[in-house]
């Protein structure tokens, strides 16, 4: 067993897509609760309880979204109270809580995703979709720091040569325009040399292959299969499991059947998967250390 983030980026992307898309397209409080617990636990276990600020921000955002709905939507049959001639209904409050929870949960998942998927992992995933795009992105990312560095150098050189006459905005703008024009010339020059360097190494000669430092190991296949099975059962439940929940005019559950219950179980397992893997990995290390 290895840490969750060490799995192949494609498996990770598939996982995050499954877990968030199901949540986004299915407004179901139980799914939401499961997903929220899974996302929060994983963030907590990964950060070792740090990032208090993050949780505070998300909580404030949650409150904001939750309050907005009952203020503007007056549907629903159970009136809680009236403020300044505005009806606040129970259904609108619950709907607000659920949709705000949904947003926050997706944000939590996304937070983990951006922390785990570093730039080269994303490029690797793009590369699987389109190798050409991946190369272009890689070259682009190469140029960004190169250009930023050169811009800085040109600016400093211009300054130290006394080309900025005075400390005013107009002069600064003129100077920046000058910098931009030189940068353009220099970029063209760079482009010529880079393209020579590419041709000298056989670019454009024939069919390219695509190398990456990530590989599919057997455990990656296992995890992918696991995710697929859980996703299929979850979707099955969404399709024929009668798991619907109605907010307006009054809140009511549909008559859930066995597929519905199965889908809750499998989605719960899916959402808890990163936490489980992470915990398993930690336990294993603890065990190994105690043996050493």
């Amino acid at each position, binding site marked *: 067993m290895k840490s969750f983030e060490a799995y192949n980026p494609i498996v990770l992307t598939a996982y995050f897509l499954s877990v968030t898309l199901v949540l986004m397209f299915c407004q179901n409080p139980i799914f939401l609760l499961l997903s929220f617990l899974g996302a929060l636990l994983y963030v907590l276990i990964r950060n070792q309880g740090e990032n208090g600020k993050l949780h505070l921000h998300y909580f404030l955002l949650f409150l904001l979204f939750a309050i907005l709905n009952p203020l503007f939507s007056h549907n629903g049959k159970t009136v809680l109270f009236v403020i300044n001639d505005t009806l606040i209904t129970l259904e609108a409050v619950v709907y607000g809580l659920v949709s705000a929870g949904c947003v926050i949960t997706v944000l939590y998942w996304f937070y983990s995703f951006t922390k785990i998927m570093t730039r080269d992992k994303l490029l690797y995933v793009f590369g699987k979709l389109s190798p050409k795009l991946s190369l272009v992105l890689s070259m682009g990312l*190469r140029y960004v720091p190169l250009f930023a560095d050169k811009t800085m150098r040109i600016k400093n*050189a211009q300054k130290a040569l006394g080309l*900025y006459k005075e400390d005013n905005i107009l002069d600064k703008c003129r100077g920046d325009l000058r910098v931009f024009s030189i940068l353009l010339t220099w970029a063209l020059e760079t482009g010529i040399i*880079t393209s020579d360097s590419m*041709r000298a*190494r056989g670019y454009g000669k024939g069919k390219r292959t*695509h190398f990456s430092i990530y590989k599919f190991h057997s455990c990656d296949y296992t995890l992918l299969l696991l995710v697929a099975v859980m996703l299929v059962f979850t979707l099955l439940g969404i399709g024929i499991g009668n798991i619907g929940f109605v907010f307006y005019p009054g809140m009511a559950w549909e008559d859930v059947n066995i597929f519905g219950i199965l889908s809750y179980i499998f989605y719960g397992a899916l959402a808890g998967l990163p936490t489980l893997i992470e915990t398993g990995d930690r336990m294993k290390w603890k065990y190994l250390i105690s043996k050493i």
Partner: protein
Amino acid sequence: MEILNIKNLNFTYPKCTAPSLRDVSFSIEDGDFTVLCGATGSGKTTLLRLLKHEIAPHGEKNGTILFFGEDISGVACEKVGFVMQNPDMQIVTDKVWHELAFGLENMGVSQNSIAKRVAEMASYFGIEHWYDRDTSTLSGGQKQLLNLAAVMVMDPMLLILDEPTSQLDPIAASYFISTLKKINLDFGITIIIIEHRLEELIPICDRLLVMENGSLLQNGGPKEVLSKMTADSGLIHSIPTAAKLYRMLGGTGDCPLTAREGRRWIKRNYSTECKGLKIPVYKHSDKSALEFKNVYFRYAKHLPDVLKSLDLNIFENEIFCILGGNGSGKTTSLSCAAGILKPYSGQIRIFGTKLQEYKNQSLYRNCISLLPQDITSIFLCHTVFEELAGTDIEMSDFPFDLSYLLDKHPYDLSGGEQQLLALAKVIAAKPKLLLMDEPTKGLDAEKKTEMLRVLHALKKNGITIVIVTHDVEFAAAVADRCALFFRGEVVSVGVPNEFFSENCFYTTTAARMTKGVFHNTVTVEQVASMCLQNGKKERYL
């Protein structure tokens, strides 16, 4: 076995009347380490590019180039590797591992064998430690090593390098050259290299080719070529110090190439009774031009100090050279003096006035000018003429000639011409204090001599010059005083003769060659005059 056979090669660029290559014929044995030298514009780069048909220049070509008996245009790309001058611009991708794999990807090699070959090369070149890094975070030396490794991974039979070390500092350059020699010895790969830095290359090369005006002048072993070289050849400045001494004194017999050989040669041929060279005492002016007082600087809060209690006083009208390794704070101190970086503690005074008191850019008006290391960043226009038109100074007032370059684009000039153009722009601003960062980077020996002359002319006009350089030979020749920086502090200051003869490692080849033989000799001219003063040994046979 001949790897290359070139017969009667002529080449003319489109819209040019004069050919760039005239009747060049030579052949190279498999496994040779060949150095190709010649002045700027002698056709070296054109010749080498014609050997790599993917990037060969367009134009009219006559003659044959055979690679193992086969015409060069049919040779597979991976057989011939090409490394260019600029370390940055050759890098294509953002990650070190991706850059290494790039050539193999283009060849359509399978994922598994790419992984194997990249791993092999990365460990051979010691790249494993920075295998995962972004290419933009590497140093110049590492970048150039990566470029070499990215070509080597394709398993070439012929490796062509066009001034690969001209943008590197001397330590990185030495390492690069020794890596090349190692490749040559370990794999038997044939190497052709163009370089200005011949001091280290000539002793290790098998063959030396000399070009002039598009024709091949010399072709043979290094010792043989050096002894045949005529005194009016432009290359005479760039040959190793020992060989220079040998030529100056009209030596006969085997030509010495390294410091070790030079030392033996002096001891064998000249008496060494009188040891000390008399040096006129240097007196600096008592007015200070640039003064650092207890200056501290760091780039960010969490980073270590780059300048640590820096104390340095540079006097009016002197040429002052700052030497030191990478990261010792040389360039940072210049940027602080020019007001680009702000120290967090300490004081900098320029002509006695605090730096902060120069308000509203007045520091840069007829007072201070900084020539950056990356010289292309100061050019603004499309021709040399336009660059100079904005200034209110006559062409004839410059202590050098630029008139033959007026129509050219500044980017098309050679490194030396770019430096002179940059200097012209600076002189036009009439500074009293000129700060220069690595002015000899990428210059051939002839242009360095020119630079030396120009700087002395500027000094005569009353300008104070501070130079940051890695080039100890240049510093020894040009400086009134030198300082050695180490970890953000000045560890020693002195006039060149004392400064360099005290140092063991950070010194000129001439000083190393004569250590213990003569005192105070740091340039080859001084060694020669000591030899003459002592006279030749009498030989009783």
